[in-house]
């Protein structure tokens, strides 16, 4: 866990350790208020735990045209690289963690794995779970102009993890 925290924050990610589900919900709602909506959420178990009010469930890419914040589940995290793992199954899809400039991922503590090796051991049949699995390691970035790093090119520039017990 502390390795994940270290790696994730070194990449520029913002980590919030929620003491309980209510605190998690409060964090998300505060963020939405401060940064502005619209916010859309994926209807997945970890996200549902928060009991968010007034945030619509993701139903398709037409929802994303103007969305500012995408709230998704993180199915796993990889500690040694600060990576989030998201399966596109059920209410998740592929684009919610991608199109909105701010991405909030809800992660259950027990889902933190050591590394990619452990993920592949745990989910050797991951292609059967969903059509897409993505490993997200920090915000979107490029150094294509004079090797100068710019964060937030096509994907989110800001990434938050809300850690549930």
């Amino acid at each position, binding site marked *: 866990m502390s390795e994940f925290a270290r790696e994730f924050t070194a990449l520029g990610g913002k980590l919030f350790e929620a003491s309980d589900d209510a605190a998690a919900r409060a964090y998300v709602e505060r963020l939405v208020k401060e940064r502005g909506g619209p916010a859309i959420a994926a209807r997945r178990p970890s996200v549902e735990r928060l009991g968010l009010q007034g945030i619509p469930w993701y139903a398709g890419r037409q929802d994303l045209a103007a969305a500012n914040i995408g709230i998704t589940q993180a199915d796993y995290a990889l500690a040694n690289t600060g990576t989030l793992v998201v399966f*596109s199954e059920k209410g998740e*899809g592929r684009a919610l963690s991608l199109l909105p400039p701010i991405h909030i991922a809800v992660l259950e503590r027990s889902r933190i794995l050591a590394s990619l090796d452990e993920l592949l051991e745990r989910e050797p049949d991951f292609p059967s779970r969903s059509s897409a699995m993505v490993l997200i390691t920090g915000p979107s970035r490029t150094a294509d102009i004079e090797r100068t790093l710019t964060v937030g090119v*096509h994907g989110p520039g800001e990434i938050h993890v809300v850690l549930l017990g």
Partner: protein
Amino acid sequence: MGLDQRIDVALENLHLQQALTSVCRGFYTVREQAAAAVPDWEELRSRANAAKREVIENLPRYLDQLEAAVKARGGQVFRAVDGAAACRYIGEVMSRRNVRTVVKSKSMATEEIELNHFLEHAGVEPVETDLGEYIIQLAGEAPFHIIAPSIHKTRYDVAKLFKEKLNVDLDPNDIPGMCALARRTLREKFLNAGVGISGVNMAVAETGTVVIVENEGNARLCTSVPPVHIAVMGIEKVIPRVPDLAVFLKLLARSATGQKLSSYTSFLSGPRREGEPDGPEEFHVIFLDNGRSKIQANPRTREALYCIRCGACLNVCPVYRKIGGHAYPWVYSGPIGAILSPQIQGLDAEPKLPFASSLCGACREVCPVKIRIPELLLELRQTEVETAPQRHTWERLAFRIWAWTMQRSWAYELGGLMARWLGDSMPLGPAAVWAKTRELPKPPANSFRELWRKRGSRP
């Protein structure tokens, strides 16, 4: 312009020289640091080499397995014997779906087959979405580096381009602003494109999973938002099984940019499924041959197909560092380009290319899949002089005389004496070329063996 002239042009471009030195040394330094931080790096390289050897030596079987696996998950597969066939297939998808705009993520394979040119001709707008590729598309240029296509362009170049082509005025020092402009402009294209086209970093034969590695997010957008995703894959990109993924993914980003993992690694196993709110309805994988099976058929050079396109060899190559990507005859540059181009395009396209290397071996040292690039260059040199003797008449004669001389120490001594005697005034070939830019060594009065004889075997 031939190779020599393109080299001259590159050497004279001082700004380019600065950019190349900074890019190459920058990249190779972070790669070295990243590799040094992995205790079993050498073992990983060996395992990757072994996995690639297994696939490339049994390529037809693995391609069959991959095809079946992709289809089992609702994807479509097209085997393209060459670029024209691949383009035609893509063209058919465009017509069937009435597509006007295509968004593309970075793919050397699509550069190889000149897909954009074909699409434009067919009345479809191809939009490059990788920032570096977008910049060179605006400039009408080929990629300069396998993973950093616009690295030769300064911020001033880019600002000027954006002004000319997008009619937007930006301060050259506002690099974030330029990126934001690209983001805004391209976002609209992502949302309206009828097809997204990507490359493939690797594909798992066992499961039919296509893997795409990137930092910007544009490849994810190309493969998530449009209703159709076409992945163009060089047939050598297959890997056998899921566990092999860990080996290659540990090597790829570190070798390319010194990152542990790139920002996004996507694993795509078919079109969207029941219950998934988004994703493409159609998923096509094009198996691009374009001369690769010819390489595969030659056991002496087939390891060139192990390449995972990390670009590490470019960054350490003294030749690439001076001449840059545009001096090479084809889309693949650097050491990997020097062994691939002659095999796919044929040696006739640029017979000098395999010789444009000092054989320093830096590439061999950093290649994550342990391709013995210098050995392959030597192989190509031998092939060139043996299959195109007409291009080497004088050189062959010179080496015959040289060999005759070197087998007889009396002749060798005589030759040495003559060379020392002629000294600076030796006008012939090599000495004249040398003397254009360097002083010739001062000929000594005696050879070593003459001195040795004078002194006797004890001092």
